[in-house]
């Protein structure tokens, strides 16, 4: 297989181990999934996946129609229609590129198109930055996209395969956007076990639209215009699909573990050092690395702090998360995004966590932190500072509900 940039070990088992970036891992997943149509439009930092896909196709390792569109809007429209005719598709973008496709992004879930997209999270213009900020992917959170954040190249590959399995399940037929932090995951390499094609074939069935296939042998009309007399019923159907998706996600992870021998535990969020924790931090994506390093340091100093890393943002596992978080004395949510004018001027994740906690009988204080925007690093001292504030809140000292960390004042 020509895909990995550096193969460092040929395992005895059927899995090859390679040192590849998050983007390359996604490209490898597309090849293993035998994707049929891919469109690209260059924008950093997602576009490294375009290069890896192009190389796989050029080397003859991957048979796929690969089209460079003239804009992100066309890019997402092209694969939307390719999917409806029966092709397994892949797409992606970053930052304002993703925003340029917004009209297409809006209709894709409503059309029940199981597109898989990679978002290389990038700060929005203006003022813009090349580095990570989660607002691009989060912008579609109400529309029916499944949203998941990964923090390693291995998780990127595995989650891409799981995403195809879940999105293309006839009970769901909703698109899924896999978020890889710009630069910190798209461009940094990690060791990845690449599964065999046989195992992938066992895990991932053929994409079958059944009676929803657009083809002369099945002359249906897709997406007629509705009015006030039918719109709500159609929306309700799409909502029902999203409501079913948590169950399908659980099934897919169980089957993944059975076939590939890799378990992610709870699919929706990862718990790190939470068993005996007094307080926890919560966040998404690659900030998990500095957070975990800082937690190990703080644990040695006797602080009982843990970390909850959300994977699936949509569907949001509210009840499960509330049950998890109500055990702690206080929670600090680290938002690598902003939500101007939202309740308490918090970030998106903090607002959603507070909403989830509303169903719990216990109400530990939830402090929202805005940190790491535009690729600014989340430093170990930032994590320690946030933990300190959360401890203060746990001790009953009122804290500002939202605090910006690592900002010049």
């Amino acid at each position, binding site marked *: 297989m020509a895909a990995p940039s550096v193969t460092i070990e040929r395992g005895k088992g059927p899995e090859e181990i390679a040192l590849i970036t998050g983007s390359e891992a996604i490209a490898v997943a597309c090849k293993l999934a*035998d994707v*049929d*149509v891919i*469109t690209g439009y260059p924008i950093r930092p997602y576009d490294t996946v375009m290069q890896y896909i192009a190389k796989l196709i050029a080397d003859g390792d991957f*048979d*796929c*129609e690969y*089209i460079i*569109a003239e804009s992100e*809007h*066309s890019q997402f*429209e*092209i*694969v*939307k*229609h*390719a*999917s*409806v*005719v*029966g*092709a397994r*598709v892949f797409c992606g973008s970053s930052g304002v590129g993703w925003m340029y496709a917004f*009209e*297409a992004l809006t*209709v894709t879930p409503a059309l029940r198109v199981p597109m898989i997209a990679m978002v290389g999270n990038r700060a929005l213009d203006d003022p813009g930055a090349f580095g990570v900020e989660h607002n691009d992917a989060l912008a579609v959170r109400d529309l029916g996209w499944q949203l998941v954040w990964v923090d390693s190249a291995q998780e990127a590959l595995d989650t891409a395969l799981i995403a195809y399995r879940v999105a293309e399940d006839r009970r769901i037929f909703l698109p899924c956007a896999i978020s890889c932090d710009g630069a910190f995951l798209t461009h940094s390499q990690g060791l990845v076990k690449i599964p065999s094609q046989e195992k992938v074939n066992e895990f991932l069935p*053929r994409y079958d639209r059944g009676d929803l296939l*657009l*083809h*002369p042998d*099945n*002359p*249906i*009309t*897709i*997406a*007629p*215009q*509705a*009015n006030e007399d*039918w719109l709500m019923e*159609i929306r309700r159907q799409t909502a029902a699909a999203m409501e079913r998706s948590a169950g399908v996600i659980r099934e897919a992870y169980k089957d993944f573990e059975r076939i590939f021998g890799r378990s992610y535990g709870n699919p929706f969020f990862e718990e790190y050092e939470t068993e005996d924790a007094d307080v926890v931090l919560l966040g998404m994506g690659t900030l998990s690395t500095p957070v975990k390093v800082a937690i190990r340091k703080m644990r040695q100093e006797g602080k009982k702090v843990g970390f909850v890393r959300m994977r699936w943002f949509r569907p949001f596992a509210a009840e499960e998360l509330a049950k998890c978080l109500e055990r702690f004395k206080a929670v600090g949510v680290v938002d690598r995004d902003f939500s101007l004018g939202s309740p308490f001027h918090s970030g998106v994740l903090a607002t959603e966590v507070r909403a989830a906690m509303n169903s719990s009988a216990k109400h530990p204080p939830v402090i929202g932190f805005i940190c790491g925007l535009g690729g600014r690093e989340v430093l170990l001292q930032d994590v320690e500072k946030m933990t300190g504030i959360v401890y203060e809140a746990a001790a009953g000292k009122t804290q500002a509900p939202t605090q910006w960390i690592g900002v010049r004042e």
Partner: protein
Amino acid sequence: MATIDVTLPKLDPIKGQKSIPLEEFFTSGHRTCQGCESALVMKMMAKAAGPRTIVLGSTGCMYVANTTYYSTSWVIPWMHTQLGSSGSAALGTAAALKSLMRKGKMKRSRLTSSRSAATAAAPTWASQLSRRP
């Protein structure tokens, strides 16, 4: 030369009112105004393109009036696309058919296009990228 599994019907060009075939591929079920010339054009184009056609219709009268849920006037497969996306829609449809046929995931037939001379609001007919077998 790749094998062809499904042969397209031979369609003669329609020249003159008296030679218009009777079979409708765009029929009743739309809500256009009486005498709407756009609907008349759709009716004629559908006959010229024939039954092995996929239609992509961008937003306009020919979307809203022709396909108001839960009726449709299209006898052949039709899908809505965005206002500026008819080109992308046709391209995506063609690319998918080409890829699926080449990879043996769909029965092969020839892909051709018949482009209408109508307005920008007209649908785009899928699809062609001619390809060496």
